[in-house]
Structure formats: C-alpha cells, structure tokens
C-alpha cells in the first residue's frame, strides 16, 4: 500500500474504521446484557431464592433427607465410573487419530460425535431394547438374576453414552495442533512408548484433558432424559439428583426441589470457574510455546 497518511489521518482511521458510533455501541451492550440477565442470571438467582425461601432449617432438612442423600450418593457413583472410562477412551481415540494415518479416520471422528446428535430419550431407549424385560438379552439376564434396566448399571450405561464424546472432542484438536515431534524425539532418545506418553504427551495435554473431564462430569451428574428412561424412579435406590428434583417438583415440594437444585447449581458454578481457569492455562501454555 502506497498511501501516505498524516498522524491525524491515522488516528482518524483507527478511531472510526473498527468501531461503531457510541450510540450503537451502548445500545448493543444494553441489548446483550439484558438478554443475558433474563436468560442466564435470573434463572440462577431464582434457584437460590426459592431454595432459601422458607429459611435455613427447611433447606438443611431438604438436603439431608435420606432420599436426597441416597440420590447424591448415586449421582457421585455414576459420575465416578462414567467419567474416567470416557476419559480413557478419549485419550486412546485422540492418540490413534492424531498420531497415525489410517483409512476411515474421518468416519471414525464423525461417529464419536454421534451421541451429541442423539436425543437423550433415545439414548435411554436403546439400552431398554438391549437389556430390558423384552430386550435382546432380557431373558438371559432374568434367568441369571442380573438387573440392568431399572437399576444402577443401566443408569451408568446411559450416562456413559451421553457423555461419550466430551474428552475425545476436546483432545483431538489440541493434540493435532501439537504434532508428534516431541514424542518422536523422546522415542529416539530411547524412552519407552508408555514413558513418552507419561512424561511428554500428558504434560502437554493436561489442561485440555482436565477441561474435557469437567465438562464431561457436569453433563454426567446433570443428565436427566436418558437416565429417566432407564432408572425406574425407585426412591432411595435408582434416583439420581436430577430425578429427585423432578419428583419433589411434581409433588409440589418446590422448596425442597430447589434446595437440591441449588446444590447442583453450586456444582455448575464451580464447573464454570474451573473451566475458565483451565482455558486460561491452555492459552498461557500455547503462548509460551509460540
């Protein structure tokens, strides 16, 4: 470009070329802020005001109720099994997809996304068709006295299905961008494959991995539709926290329902804080490498 600009002209271009008049700016900011307050902030606030609307004692009674406690316990057990398994899958899938070339790779990547596109209700349905009373393995399971549907194993399977893509989806682009040269160097220096993974790959992907894990965990503890299909809603036995919230709400025990919901909201806020922290760590890590 051979256009010479005076300093005043440059300043003028800087000022007007990449932003809008103040009126437009303020109007847009107000629109966005109002939209976000109505859709995000108010729902979050109303959960806590409803939960505490009858005071601390009612709140504490609601969350220490035996059915609530067993729902909390079940939710934690389900997440403790589903999340690590999907994390291991995510690492394995990301390793073979980003470090090697093979036929059908793009189909493989698409198939990993599949659970994101499937309705949670259908995710529950497929396990009923497999393991339910009329299901393919129904008779065999009945004869051997194994319960999967309307029992804890079904809830775990449905949750695993729903949260299946999270870690893999997060790791694939990160490992793709990092390439394999560091791993190759480590192998050349005589480290074993496993040592290379632990000492070279894992430190590079750790924040991305944790990011995927907390999103996976958030969905695992909050899943409703899929779990609702396979759970059978047996109080104290197969009710997770979201199902317990639904039952209380439908019984018009609104305060108790919102009390349990407030616990899940605290977990959600905690998830958001961690997520932002991991994002910041990832950006920093990339900045250092560049």
């Amino acid at each position, binding site marked *: 470009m051979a*256009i010479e600009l005076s300093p005043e002209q440059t300043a003028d271009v800087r000022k007007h070329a990449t932003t809008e008049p103040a009126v437009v700016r303020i109007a847009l900011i107000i629109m*966005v802020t109002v939209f976000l307050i109505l859709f*995000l902030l108010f729902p979050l606030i109303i959960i806590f005001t409803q939960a505490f609307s009858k005071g601390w004692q009612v709140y504490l009674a609601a969350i220490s109720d035996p059915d609530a406690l067993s729902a909390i316990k079940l939710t934690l057990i389900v997440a403790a099994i589903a999340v690590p398994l999907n994390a291991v899958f995510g690492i394995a899938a990301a390793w073979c997809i980003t470090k090697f070339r093979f036929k059908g790779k793009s189909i493989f990547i698409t198939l990993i996304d599949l659970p994101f596109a*499937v309705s949670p209700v259908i995710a529950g349905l497929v396990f009923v068709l497999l393991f339910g009373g009329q299901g393919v393995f129904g008779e065999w399971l009945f004869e051997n006295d194994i319960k999967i549907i309307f029992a804890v194993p079904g809830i775990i399977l449905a949750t695993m299905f729903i949260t299946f893509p999270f870690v893999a989806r997060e790791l694939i682009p990160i490992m*793709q961008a990092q390439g394999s040269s560091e791993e190759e160097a480590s192998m050349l220096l005589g480290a074993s494959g496993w040592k290379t993974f632990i000492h070279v790959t894992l430190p590079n992907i750790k924040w991305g991995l944790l990011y995927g894990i907390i999103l996976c965990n958030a969905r695992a503890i909050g899943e409703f539709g899929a779990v609702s299909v396979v759970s059978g809603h047996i109080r104290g036995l197969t009710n997770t926290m979201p199902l317990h919230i639904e039952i209380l709400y439908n019984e018009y025990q609104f305060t108790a329902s919102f009390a349990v919901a407030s616990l899940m909201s605290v977990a959600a806020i905690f998830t958001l*804080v961690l997520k932002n922290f991991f994002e910041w760590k990832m950006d920093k890590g990339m900045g250092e490498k560049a």
Partner: protein
Amino acid sequence: MTLAKPARPSRSLPGFGLTLGFSLFYLSLLVLLPLSMVFLKTAGLSWEEFLGVVTDKRVVASYKLSFGTAFLAAVINLVFGILIAWVFTRYRFPFRRLLDGLIDLPFALPTAVAGIALTTLYAEQGWIGQWIPFKIVYTPIGITMALVFVGLPFVVRMVQPILQGLERELEEASYMMGATRLQTFQHIIFPEIVPAALTGFALTFARALGEYGSVVFIAGNMPMKTEITPLIIMTKLEQYDYAGATAIAVVMLVISFILLLCINGLQWWASRKTEEN
C-alpha cells in the same frame, strides 16, 4: 471445534493397534451396537404398521412443534449469538468478563434444574411472567425459551474465536475506500463468520430437537398442543409400547444423522475458511 493445522502423522510412535483397537471396541459396544437396536427392532414392524405409528395425528403434531420450536430457538440463538460474540470481542464494559464466563452456564447446569428455574421465573405469578401480558409457561413460547437457554453457548463459542482472529487492517482499508460501517460489516466481517455461525446454528438445532429435561417442566405436555416428540417416545415407553417408541425414535435418529452430516460439512467449510486466512 475445528481441526487445527494437521500434524504429520508418524509411523515411529507405538500404540496404534492398542489405542485404535480399544477405542473402536468401546465405540461399538457403547454407541453403535445399542443404536443399531433401534433399527433392528423397527425391522420387526411391517411397513404399514411403521407408517401408522409415525404418521399418527398426535405424533405429526409433535414433529411440527419440535421442529418449529427448535428452529425458532436456533434462529434466536444465531442472531443473539453473533451479537453477543461481537459485543464481547469488540467492546469494553463493566461485568463483561463475568457475563462472558456465564455464557457456558447452560452446559454446566443440569437441564432439569434449568427447566424448573425457567418455569418458576416465567409462570403467570413469576418474577418475569407477571410483567408479560401473554402466557409463556405451558405454551410453545415457553418451550422455545427453554430451548434458547439450552443452546445459548453454541453460536457464541463458535463465532467468538473467528472475530478475535480477524485482522483490523481489512476494516481500516474498507473505511479508507469510503465504505460505511454497515457496508464493512456486510461485506468484510459477515462472510468470515458465516461458516462458524451456521455450524453453531446447526448444533443448536440438533440439540434442541432432542432436548427433554428443560422442556418437560415448562411445556405442560398437552397432547396435540405442547407435546414434543421426545416426550411421546417417553410416554410410549411408560406404556410398554416399545415398538411404537422405537418407530418414532427411528424417524428422529435419521434426522439426527442428516444434521450430523450437515454439521460435519459446515465444520469442514469453517476450517477451510480459517486456513485461507
């Protein structure tokens, strides 16, 4: 979610057989085998029986409702998503970081919790509902509101990185050539964000079509009026009508597969666009 510059795949690294074998096995056992059951089960129905179930009046009404509300929610999220991404990347204002962090709330908050919170908020006696002259809860408007909440982060998070990566020089050049700000947006900025925005739109739409948890509380679930398709599947399951539930699931799954292919195509377009720059 786009794939960054491809790394050179290596043959000297170990673990290909193990990781591919394990991940294929896990994928087949947990996702492919269970999903194939839906098609197997439906194959047990005759074509007439299948058509009878999936074109039943009440079921067709639910398709219209699910499609209509999911589409409307995706459009609202497309417009506001671009707007939010723009305001967050271009302007500085109080509480910007807080609001930016809050955007992902729908991904972190359980859908059932969102459902009861929105229902309480927009009920006729609710904090917001009392100021609105028409009914929101137990109408398609309420369903749309829940779906807007659930899909809110998709478009924002797709468009934001594109806007951040945009070079200001282009806009300066456009200004120098005498373009108005609106023209610059229309011809310089907008084409850059179209693939990402459409990917976000398709993701929102796919998510909204299948959404259950946040909708059941606010919908009221009246047959022919506010009954979404996933709820019909649920109702049929509760009545042990597995064949009926599965037939409708097949229709939804086929639509999901088509949407997934569209999303893939859009993502490919978006990543090519990024590479061009």
